């Protein structure tokens, strides 16, 4: 725990399914006790990479090591070290929570007493003790997810691999799960998680790798990324959503990039490298055009801005009207 050395190493990994190339040469490193967030859209290759790390899939080319062990050649040893939580809550609905965890413990090779003990421990940790003897079929979505996460903890893994752990959860449950994951990381678990949610990566990850079309297109700490790709942004909130498109046209050319509209939030954001100058210029134009705005200011970029600038969804010539997911 003294020296920070790469605990997970992914080097030049390629994987194709038929003629579709899912991974086109991915390099990633995760240091011990840190969290890597693998950020990308649906179909970017996140799940393929995670499945390779979890020894479910062999790469076509490249090398993957966990704790110095090759995940293909020493798969069995790797499996004793990792905990894997896939994209779906992979629990048996007709079994109780306790039975589900007990089963996983037995499959880690624990004796029946120890398996039961670990199941109890995990149930308590995830506040599922009172529901332990109920069938999972009666659990809420959040409880299922927690149980699924619990199943990946039964073996006391050194490395946790989670594929979109909070997809489909309501905001409250999501925050609950985040708190729990943070606790695990504080205890020294190395974590690699994939997510589509920028907010999630920002909150949980020490380092983020943005993956797009099977390649890592950017990597760094959340702050690094924001600084490197985001710059500052001028943000205007229109009083009426009808004015959003007008504001986009009005602000075009003022910043260091095209303005982006968030129709739902009635906001327009404009990347800039000269914050004050751009802010004043924008204010003048808005006043001259007589558009009513509720708010106008400069702020640090969010990961949304970073993501949008890395993965453009519209042609650069035209002012982008991208819909941000809040």
């Amino acid at each position, binding site marked *: 725990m003294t020296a920070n050395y790469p605990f997970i190493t992914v080097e030049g990994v390629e994987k194709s399914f038929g003629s579709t190339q899912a991974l086109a040469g991915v390099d990633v490193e995760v240091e011990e006790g840190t969290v890597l967030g693998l950020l990308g859209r649906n179909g970017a290759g996140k799940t393929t990479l995670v499945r390779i790390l979890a020894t479910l899939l062999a790469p076509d080319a490249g090398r993957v090591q966990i*704790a*110095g062990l090759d995940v293909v050649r020493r798969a069995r040893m790797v499996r*004793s070290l990792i905990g894997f939580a896939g994209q779906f809550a*992979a629990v*048996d609905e007709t079994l109780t929570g306790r039975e589900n965890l007990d089963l996983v413990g037995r*499959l*880690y090779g624990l004796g029946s007493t120890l398996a039961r003990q670990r199941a109890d421990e995990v149930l308590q940790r995830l506040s599922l003790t009172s529901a332990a003897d109920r069938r999972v079929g009666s659990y809420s979505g959040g409880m299922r997810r927690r149980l699924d996460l619990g199943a990946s903890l039964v073996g006391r893994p050194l490395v946790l691999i989670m594929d979109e752990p909070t997809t489909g959860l309501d905001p409250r449950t999501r925050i609950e799960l985040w708190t729990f994951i943070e606790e695990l990381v504080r205890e020294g678990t190395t974590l690699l998680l994939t997510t589509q949610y920028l907010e999630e990566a920002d909150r949980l990850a020490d380092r983020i790798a943005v993956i797009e079309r099977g390649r890592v297109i950017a990597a760094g700490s959340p702050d690094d990324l924001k600084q490197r790709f985001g710059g500052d942004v001028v943000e205007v909130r229109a009083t009426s959503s009808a004015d959003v498109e007008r504001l986009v046209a009005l602000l075009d050319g003022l910043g260091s990039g095209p303005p982006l509209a968030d129709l739902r939030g009635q906001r327009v954001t404009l990347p800039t490298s000269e914050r004050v100058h751009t802010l004043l210029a924008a204010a003048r134009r808005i006043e001259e055009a007589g558009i009513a705005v509720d708010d106008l200011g400069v702020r640090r970029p969010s990961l949304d801005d970073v993501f949008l600038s890395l993965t453009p969804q519209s042609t650069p010539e035209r002012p982008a009207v991208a819909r941000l997911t809040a």
Partner: protein
Amino acid sequence: MTTATFDEVATRRTVRPSGVRSFLSDTFVLTRRNLLISLRTPQLVVAAAIMPVMFVLLFRYVFGGSIHVAGYPSYVDFLIPGIIVQTSLFGGSSSAVSVAEDLSKGVTDRFRSLPTQRGAILTARTLADLVRLTYTVGLMIGIGLLVGFRFHNSLLPVLGGIGIALLFGYACSWLFTLLGLLVRNVEAATLVAFVVTFPLVFAASTFTATDTMPAWLRTFANAQPVTQVIDALRALTQGTGSAHDAVLHSLAWSAGIFVVAATVATRRFRRV
């Protein structure tokens, strides 16, 4: 320096040994899981029994009166062995559905990411299905006895005949396991299993002797394993004619299906 740290990590952890003991333990634990799920899904238990019971009643009381098979004064003695083998095949088809379900729900991924013996996962699937099959076959014999079926041979050949039917069912559940791995989706698995089972069960000596079928159909019916297994079971439970050839053919078919299906399924399972 880093290597030393890694070795330390590896030795600090008890890495689960592979071998016969973990295979047996995993198979036991997973078979119990599969059976528990079946037991707690009443639809499965009832569905496994209801179809064959309907067939018994249909052929015993509706069609049976007008079906006459040479050598069988009572049609029900001809019918029940057919139903038992039909049940073995239909029962095996539930393997396809369960395999596809575990795959699509991500449960299989979880099991495969654990230091589990991967062969144990499929073995447990088929063993649980064998237990289920034994229950259904027992039930069919019970229903048969209620509607007038009788064994006309001594205990040993009767048990041998039932054993041959179960063995065939077991071999087929590997075949259905393979189908489940290939289609991966519950609805498709149900359909494919039905499409495979239907001709095998009906173009066979299940409900009537094959001699009345047109020549092309008769050739198929006599050559395929279901007829062989049914003929063996009939000969052994009813003492009608020599069982020798049918028994040998049945065992050969079962062994062949088992070896091929289990090998291909296990290989396929590494890449799901």
